[in-house]
Every structure is written in structure tokens, then in C-alpha cells.
């Protein structure tokens, strides 16, 4: 699969007046394939925004290489930026201009016309407020305006840094659907976020970084499947009796006070059902013991914390 973003050994240190330089990114390697929505996760201060800034030439890397759309950045940015839409942190626009005027002004740099501006505003749901001054906009509306600006170029790659910041639940849902739609339309969407549920619901692939280093990367399903233990969560009214029954059948069982965790793959769920039913115990719940992205993220970053 062709990589649309390729980062190798990226390191960025910020010099400080006093003390040692601040290392924001520490030898990051990352490959983002073309197409779909790619989630770039990490706790605050993990180096997500600095990585994006390095990719887009806003800050210079201390060492390492970055390539976007197959071309080295920042050297060839002028060639690729007409095909890259980007929001970096909170998008800043002219508060005294309307949304339409702001986009027309930006579009004029690349010769983009008014029709396209109107389409972008409609796409992010700002059509009705397009002629209101940006200073009257909520944070969520400003985020959407930033997204409209990024979409103006009809980009092959969208780089979005925390696009759901400041959005209410309905706004988040709209952005989520919009990102999915863009992914389906053939754009590659690279989205950094700390809203893990959002990412889990939106992204096809994910990379998790912490302290400037890549911790894991891959398809969301694969990452979660790999992290999940092959076990079943069993809900019964009498946990002690259930645990005893299953242990007597030679199964490994743990109880967390709410569920029994049985060390069996999902394909053996029927065996558990039969054992309990034969003992006169009836299930209230039976499901695979899957790990959510949030649980995985927290366990990884907590582990890294301990290790460091």
C-alpha cells in the first residue's frame, strides 16, 4: 500500500533559554497509507502537534525525515501544499470578516472561486451562517470553518489537528460523519485527537505515540484484537456458584465482582452456556472480553509512564 505520509527517525528539540532543550518528538517512525481515516493518538504533550508542524514545515526538525504525498518536506512543500488541507490546533481566521470573506481571501491565493467557497461552507454546515462575522462564532463553529478552509483545495490529504475540540456532541457527530464521508470519497484524512471514542468510531487505522515515540500502529480492529485477551465475560446472578461450576469443568475463571472472566475464545461460548445451564444457572450476559481503544490507550501510556 502506498504511503501518503512517511516519517523516519523524526526528532524535534526546542531550545530553551535555561536548562536542557525540550524534546518534543523523539525518533518517531510513522507510515500512513493512502485512503481512509488515520487516527494519530497521544496524551497531551506527546508530540502530536509538533509532528504535524514538522510535516507541514511550520517547525524545522532537529533530525529525521518527513515526506508527504511522496515528496520530502519541507523542501518540496510548495509542490504538495495545493493538495493538502490542514488545520493546526484552533484555526485562526480574521474575526472582523465573515466566514465567506475569510474563505474567499484564502481561496484567492490559489485562484479558488466563490462557488467552491460556498460548497465548502455547505459541506461543514455553515451555509446559513456564512455571512456572519467570525467574531460571533462559537469555538465549534470556528473549528468547522477551519475544516471548510482545509476542504477548499479539494485536497488529496487532510491533516486535522484536534478537529473536534470545542464541539458539542451533535457537532462531534457531524464531524465524525464528515470525516468518514471524506475517507470514503478517496481523501486520506490524518486526524490527531485525544478523544479516543471518536477515533475508534471514525478511523480505519490508528497510531499511538507517547513522549514523542511511536508505541503502536495498525488497523483499529487488528490493534484492538491483538490487545484483547481471548476470554469471555459472563454475567450470572450467582457469581460464586457460576465460578465454581466452570472451575469444576476445568476452566480458568476470574471474578471481578460483576462478571466472570472465562479464559476461552468466543467460539467456545456455547460450551460455557451449556455448563451453566446444566447447573441451573442462567446467563444474564455473555460477550467477548474486548478492549476499547480508550482502555488500550490508557494501559499503554500508563505502562510507558511506569517504564520511564
Amino acid at each position, binding site marked *: 500500500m502506498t504511503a501518503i505520509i512517511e516519517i523516519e527517525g523524526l526528532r524535534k528539540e526546542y531550545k530553551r533559554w535555561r536548562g536542557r532543550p525540550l524534546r518534543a518528538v523523539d525518533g518517531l517512525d510513522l507510515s500512513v497509507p493512502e485512503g481512509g481515516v488515520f487516527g494519530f493518538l497521544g496524551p497531551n504533550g506527546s508530540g502530536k502537534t509538533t509532528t504535524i508542524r514538522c510535516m507541514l514545515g511550520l517547525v524545522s526538525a532537529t533530525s529525521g525525515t518527513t515526506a508527504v504525498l511522496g515528496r520530502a518536506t519541507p523542501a518540496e512543500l510548495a509542490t504538495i*501544499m495545493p493538495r493538502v488541507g490542514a488545520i493546526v490546533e484552533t484555526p485562526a481566521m480574521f474575526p472582523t470578516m465573515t466566514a465567506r470573506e475569510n474563505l474567499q481571501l484564502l481561496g484567492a491565493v490559489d485562484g479558488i472561486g466563490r462557488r467552491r467557497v460556498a460548497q465548502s461552507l455547505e459541506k461543514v454546515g455553515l451555509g446559513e451562517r456564512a455571512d456572519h462575522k467570525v467574531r460571533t462564532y462559537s469555538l465549534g463553529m470556528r473549528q468547522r470553518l477551519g475544516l471548510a478552509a*482545509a476542504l477548499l483545495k479539494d485536497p488529496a490529504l487532510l491533516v486535522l489537528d484536534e478537529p473536534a475540540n470545542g464541539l458539542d456532541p451533535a457537532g462531534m457527530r457531524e464531524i465524525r460523519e464528515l470525516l468518514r464521508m471524506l475517507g470514503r470519497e478517496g481523501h486520506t484524512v490524518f486526524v490527531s485527537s485525544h478523544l479516543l471514542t471518536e477515533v475508534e468510531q471514525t478511523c480505519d487505522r490508528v497510531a499511538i505515540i507517547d513522549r514523542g515515540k511511536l508505541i503502536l500502529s495498525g488497523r483499529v480492529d487488528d490493534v484492538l484484537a491483538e490487545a484483547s485477551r481471548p476470554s469471555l465475560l459472563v454475567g450470572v446472578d450467582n457469581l460464586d456458584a457460576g465460578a465454581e461450576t466452570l472451575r469444576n469443568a476445568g476452566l480458568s475463571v476470574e471474578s471481578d465482582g460483576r462478571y466472570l472472566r472465562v479464559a476461552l475464545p468466543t467460539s467456545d461460548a456455547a460450551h460455557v452456556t451449556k455448563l451453566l445451564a446444566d447447573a441451573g444457572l442462567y446467563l444474564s450476559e455473555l460477550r467477548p472480553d474486548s478492549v476499547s481503544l480508550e482502555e488500550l490507550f490508557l494501559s499503554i501510556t500508563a505502562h510507558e509512564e511506569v517504564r520511564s
Partner: protein
Amino acid sequence: MRFLRLTAVEMRRALHRRLVRWMILIAVVFSALAGLIVFLSSRDPIKFALDQAHPARMVNWWTSGGEDDLLGTAAIFLVVGAAICGASVAGAEWRSGTMTTMLTWVPSRVRLHGARTLSAALLAFVISFSIQVFYLACSVPAVAANGTTSGTDASWWGALLFAMLRISLVTSLVAVLAVSIATIGRNTSAALVALAAWALVIERLVAGFWPKLGRFMIAENVATVVPWVQLSDVDFERPPIVALLALLTYLAAVVAAATALFARRDVATT
């Protein structure tokens, strides 16, 4: 072509700055007030007859040497206004975070800074010239009703136009200087403080302690270029053309420094 489009965009962005609009409005209001004062003060025929320097005598709009004439006074305010607006145009980009937004559209920083500098120069020139025209036009009723146009021959009109163009040029140079300083300092206030400290403190100290070095000072060179005459009561000789070349050289150095710094600088905050 793309550079010209970008320059036009930068001009529109600059004109949307609230401070720039306020400064233009203030200049228009003060020009109108000045015109009213000129008109009212020219109504008394006896006082007017005694005041040979009154601006209702059109020939006093511009006098050779540029001392105590109507246009010379305006030049001071235009230069100060250009410094404030120029510093604001560049400084506010850093404060408001629009710099990051622009760089995601125009990744070539040299091109972006070049367009911003050129737009500041062009805008300052055009605005300065337009304000001068309006400012002088506000005194026309006084001339028409109570004053005189005597002495305003073709050579005077030529000298007036040449003076207006020079003032516009100096305004333009100061605006570019302010843009460059604000780009270096990434802050409007820092740029204004630096400019004021340089012009009002450092240059005055140097010119006071070492009068012969005065010919290298920005203020002395500006004061030579605007009236286009060699300064009197100074210990040095500085023909106007040399003063203008000196200003252009200083400016080129500051613009080059600002461009080089901007091209290498990390834009690490929104």
C-alpha cells in the same frame, strides 16, 4: 502571477485590520477639522492680511524647504501612522495565530514575507497620497472663499506633486520598516517600542554627542528627503539623493534580516 495574487490578498488582509481602518478614519476626520480651522481663521480680513503664512494662501501649502507649510505638518503624522499600521499588520499575525493558517496555504515563507512587504509598501504609498490629497482639498474652501492662489504657477504645482510623492515614499519606507521590525519581534508593541527608542533616544543621543555622525541617522535623512534640501544648522553635508539612498540601504538590510529570520523561524504556537 501567484505572487501578485498573494500581494493583493495581503493588501486586502491589511485593509481589514481594525487599527488600519481607524487610523485612516482619524486622518480623514483630522484633515476635515484642519480644513475647518483654516476656513474659520481666514474669515477675518485684517488678521488674514497680516498672516502671510496662512494656508488659505495656496502657495503656503508647500514651500521650498518645507518649513511651516501645510504639507510638512501632515508628513509627520503620516510617518507615525505608517509605523503604527505597519507594525500592527505584521505583529497581529503572530498574536492572532493567522500566521499558521497562512503558512498552510503559502508554504514559501520568502514569498509570503515578500508579498506582505510589497503590499505594505504599496498600501502605505497609496493611502498616504490619498490622505494628502484629501487634506489639501479640505483647505480649498478657505482658499476659494477668503484666500488666494497667487504664486501657484506650473513649477509650484510640480514641486507640490513632487513633495507629495516624496512624503508618500517616506511613509511607504517607514511602513515597510515597521513590518520588518514587527516580523523580527513577532509583536506590534515590541516593534513600536523599538522604533520609538531608536528614533527618539538612540539617534538623538548619537547626534547629540557626535554631531558629524548625524548624517547616518534615519531622522536626519528623512528630514532631508521630505523637503528635498540639505539640512541647515548641521555639521555635515548630505545631499537629498544621498539621504534617500541611505534610507533605502538601511531598509534593504532590515528587510533582508527580517526575511532571513522569518524563513528559518519555528512557528510553534497557533
